């Protein structure tokens, strides 16, 4: 049929892309309504530092990226809950701090080359079979946990204090959410790129919020927008030889613009 599917790497990109297209808005919905939109971007930069560690130590970059992002997520959540530093200052600290660490490590690893560009902006040709199995396995774990804890995560996002008064384990749920966000970011890095993951987690969600009529509805629409964006992005990326992350996010952006025009008809 289409020559695009003649190549194994394209098939891997499509499977990985589908998993990420579902995970990103699942997590993104909770991040956006909690005013955590910048969390994804911050974790992405931390993941880049993880990639640098991977390149330097010659281990799987996706593994070191996941570890770095999860450790940072725990650190961010801890610092934020002590309330001794403002939430967004914590994010700024980790974002620029980890970028600095990444820059230092990458120059040590002599990693400033084309390879780095693919990590920054995403590349469809780089999903290895190992990457794919990690993405699919952890992607399923993320989705299952989000669905299983949907009502608790919704409650904590809507009213943290009441959730606490009702005896929910709020700190554990908050921690879990940021850890899942970290994992998703690290998984999405290959296809969407470090600099654009935040966009894939946020833009489909705010697009959905323009037209959705409930929280569940928001999540469903966000996933649909994200799937269309990822798949059309992959197609354009292949046929027009464009960076996949950029193409995906530009498509998502178009959806957002359309949604603001449609808006809510009450």
């Amino acid at each position, binding site marked *: 049929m289409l020559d695009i599917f003649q190549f194994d790497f394209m098939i891997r990109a499509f499977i990985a892309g589908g998993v990420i297209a579902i995970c990103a808005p699942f997590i993104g919905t909770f991040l956006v309504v909690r005013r955590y939109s910048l969390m994804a971007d911050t974790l992405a930069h931390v993941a880049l530092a993880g990639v640098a560690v991977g390149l330097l130590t010659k281990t799987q970059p996706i593994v070191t990226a996941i570890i770095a992002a999860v450790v940072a997520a725990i650190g961010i959540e801890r610092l934020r809950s002590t309330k001794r530093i403002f939430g967004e200052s914590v994010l700024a600290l980790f974002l620029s701090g980890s970028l600095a660490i990444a820059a230092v490590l990458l120059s040590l690893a002599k990693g400033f080359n084309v390879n780095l560009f693919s990590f920054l902006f995403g590349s469809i040709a780089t999903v290895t079979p190992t990457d794919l199995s990690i993405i699919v396995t952890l992607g399923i774990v993320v989705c299952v946990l989000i669905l299983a804890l949907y009502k*608790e995560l919704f409650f904590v996002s809507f009213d943290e204090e009441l*959730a606490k*008064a009702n005896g929910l384990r709020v700190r554990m749920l908050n921690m879990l959410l940021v850890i899942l966000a970290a994992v998703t970011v690290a998984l999405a890095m290959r296809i969407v790129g470090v600099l654009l993951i935040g966009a894939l987690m946020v833009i489909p969600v705010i697009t959905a919020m323009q037209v959705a009529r409930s929280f569940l*509805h928001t999540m469903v629409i966000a996933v649909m927008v994200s799937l269309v964006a990822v798949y059309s992005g992959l197609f354009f990326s292949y046929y027009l030889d464009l960076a996949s992350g950029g193409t995906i996010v530009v498509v998502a952006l178009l959806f957002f613009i359309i949604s603001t025009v449609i808006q809510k008809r009450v």
Partner: protein
Amino acid sequence: MNPNPTSPSPSSSCVEFHRVNFQYDSTPVLHDINFRIDFGDYVGILGPNGSGKTTVLKIMLGLLKPTSGMVKLFGEDINYFKDFSWIGYVSQWVSHSGWGFPATVQEVVRTGRIAKVGILRRFQPEDYAAVEQAMETTGIRQFANRLITQLSGGERQRVFIARALAAQPKMLILDEPTVGVDLPSQEQFYTLIRKLNEEMGMTIIFVSHDIDVITHESKNILCLNRELICHVASKDFISSEHLEKLYGRKGKYILHGH
């Protein structure tokens, strides 16, 4: 007069504070607070800003731990108390993260039921029924599928009460429940609370700085200003005498003419 057979006997207490002290870091907020609130009571907690009213509520809800002293809920030490679904809580509505949050009335009311349903479990028919009933009682059923951002302050207030009722609590705690709510909605609100207290035997505790409302609506009054100034029946509350103690001068400045 308690229709709920699983409730403890009406003579037992809902909340007891014994010699409770509380301080934030090193700033004392509450000093040696002692009181007891019985089943079926309707208590208004009155005090100026910064008097520790909200702190008292948060201690009752288990959100804050007293620095010293003992708190009992339904006769049990709060440290061992597990049934927090017996307590419905409506916080100051301005503090809700409701702005722009894409949730429907129904989705919000259901959160009141989540602790009762339990983690990793699905809603059962009786849970949906309780949610429906709560929306019915508060008169918001026609808004069930509306986004909460599309509601007025008064309507949204009723959503939060419905959410508290969805857990079928024995006691309802309200913090400044009518701030930001227009006058007709306030009257509707107090009629509803009175009904919950009188017809369903629910214990009501509410915090307000509005003396008129408290003396008019509640059965008993707790006056608080870092320490307990008085705990009297509303009909025995003599404004001038207690208010001077409460506010340190004639209370005229804070009497609202509603």
